[in-house]
């Protein structure tokens, strides 16, 4: 192509351009006009996927800070999937809930741009900016239903804590810069590999503060407190989007920073991360048990999933890295599908996201109930679904790194998590609908189609994971 610097940016550019196009369309649409603006996004994401495919194995670097390596491209693929599913689910929900469509899609796309940027950046400063792009977009998306007090409240909590934590993150960058003299990961890495960690407390501060910043974004305990509130307050589909996209991007950057630049010191930082991972898995699952709101329950569940991903990070070997990638994909598809289903079941005046709203769903909407069940089983890690392979991969990473205890915590908490996933199943299949609850809503066809696609992917990843596993393993060969 015309400029190797730009090559690496093409996926991002595609999405950015369509985001701008969406905004433009919004600006010029009539007041009551309904335009299928989601298509812009799908086009952009398609372009991103295509360009990413063309960039595969080329390892081009853009402006020294963006690298289209396989790792980044794999994450880009995941993000494309997340974005596409989100847009497909949103298409009806947006109009149903009276969300300003143009801004909504633009923000979704911009945040995807931020996510891709974060996943492919090799400069701490760019990572920070990308983080802010995606965060600001997601804060706004959380509160996009301004008439909803919960939405705004969730958005504000998310925003305030996000700003707070990004200050810590930034402080970490400052120390990294101070010690290594650069924010480029490559430079930091080569500087650090010549050091012994315990010599310089500034590096320790840098590691700790960066860890806090990432831990916040992936909602690891004890930096998770915003998660349930933000997830509950946001519209279901936004929750689906941010519980997956943000986590994917944050984990990609986390992995890149900690398993490349800071890898020489993994023996030093890993034990603490292991404890954080354990705490995250335990708290996420245990507190999930008592929840009665489905979104909140899944919020805790996604905290726990963050813990599983951390296990892969702790393992800090090639299996672990590949496992993170695979798990991210499996988790994203599954979780997004679950939230998509929740979103589809809502109505303008009721979110229908309490557990009791799902009672007897099997009788009224059997197909939706079945698809939802598959999502839940996949989240619970039961074969033959994607979630099972993902967990298996993660735990094999832990085992191969000798972290047996972490793997044991992981499997036991996933048993507990099955309990609350099954509560939903119990509601759908084994309970009768309470009198007085509104009847079932009609579910738009496109939403069902998206759900079906997601389920197909869950099964594909669960039964024939070889190809994707191979891609994931290939992706981690070059991580810079």
């Amino acid at each position, binding site marked *: 192509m015309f400029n190797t610097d730009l090559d690496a940016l093409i996926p991002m550019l595609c999405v950015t351009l369509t985001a701008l196009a969406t905004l433009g369309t919004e600006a010029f649409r009539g007041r009551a006009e309904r335009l299928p603006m989601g298509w812009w996004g799908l086009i952009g994401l398609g372009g991103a996927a295509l360009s990413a495919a063309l960039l595969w194995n080329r390892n081009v670097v853009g402006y020294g800070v963006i690298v289209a390596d396989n790792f980044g491209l794999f994450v880009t693929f995941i993000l494309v999937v997340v974005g596409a599913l989100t847009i497909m689910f949103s298409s009806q929900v947006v109009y149903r809930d009276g969300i300003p469509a143009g801004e909504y899609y633009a923000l979704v796309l911009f945040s995807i741009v931020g996510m891709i940027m974060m996943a492919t950046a090799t400069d701490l400063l760019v990572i920070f900016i990308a983080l802010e792009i995606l965060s600001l977009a997601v804060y706004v998306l959380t509160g996009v239903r301004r008439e909803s007090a919960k939405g705004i409240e969730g958005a504000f909590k998310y925003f*305030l804590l996000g700003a707070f934590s990004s200050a810590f993150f930034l402080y970490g960058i400052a120390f990294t810069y*101070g010690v290594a003299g650069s924010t480029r990961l490559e430079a930091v890495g080569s500087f650090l590999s010549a050091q012994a960690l315990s010599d310089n407390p500034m590096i320790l501060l840098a590691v700790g503060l960066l860890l806090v910043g990432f831990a916040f974004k992936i909602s690891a305990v004890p930096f998770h407190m915003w998660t349930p509130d933000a997830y509950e307050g946001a519209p279901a589909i936004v929750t689906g989007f941010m519980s997956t996209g943000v986590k994917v991007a944050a984990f990609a950057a986390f992995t890149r920073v900690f398993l490349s630049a800071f890898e020489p010191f993994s023996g030093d930082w890993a034990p603490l991360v292991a404890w954080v991972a354990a705490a995250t898995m335990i708290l996420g699952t245990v507190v999930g048990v008592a929840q009665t709101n489905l979104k909140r329950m899944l919020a805790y569940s996604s905290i726990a999933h963050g813990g599983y991903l951390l296990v892969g990070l702790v393992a800090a070997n090639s299996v672990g890295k590949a496992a993170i990638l695979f798990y991210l994909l499996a988790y994203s598809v599954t979780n997004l599908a679950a939230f998509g289903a929740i979103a589809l079941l809502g109505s303008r005046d009721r979110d229908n996201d309490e557990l009791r709203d799902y009672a007897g769903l099997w009788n009224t909407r059997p197909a939706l109930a079945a698809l939802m069940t598959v999502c839940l089983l996949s989240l619970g890690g039961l074969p033959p679904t994607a979630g099972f392979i993902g967990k298996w991969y993660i735990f094999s990473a832990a085992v191969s790194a000798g972290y047996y205890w972490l793997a044991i915590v992981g499997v036991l908490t996933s048993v507990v998590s099955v309990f609350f996933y099954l509560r939903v199943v119990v509601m759908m299949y084994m309970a009768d609908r309470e009198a007085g609850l509104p009847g079932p809503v009609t579910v738009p066809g496109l939403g069902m189609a998206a759900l079906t696609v997601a389920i197909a992917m869950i099964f594909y990843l669960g039964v024939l994971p070889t190809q994707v596993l191979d891609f994931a393993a290939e992706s981690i060969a070059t991580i810079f």
Partner: protein
Amino acid sequence: MIPLHHYLIVSAVLFAIGTAGVFLRRNLITILLSVEIMLNAVNLTFVAFGRYRGDVDGQIITFFVMTVAAAEAAVGLALIIALFRHRESLNPDAFTSLKW
């Protein structure tokens, strides 16, 4: 010449004041200001390090941080306005309908 760690300690104190502000104040706007203090503390660190290292990266990063701070302030204030519309209050404790 003033040793580097003087600056760093000042910025550390500033940073800590910012964090404390998040806890001590029961006004959303002041809390937002506290976050601004934290960001400025980081800026001071950057500039100090940049001066110590003798390159301009530190200063440049400061510009980006300012931009980010501006963007955050815009969104944050918009959120505060939206919040205020719902419940005529700026006390963070007033917004606890999402919990447990």
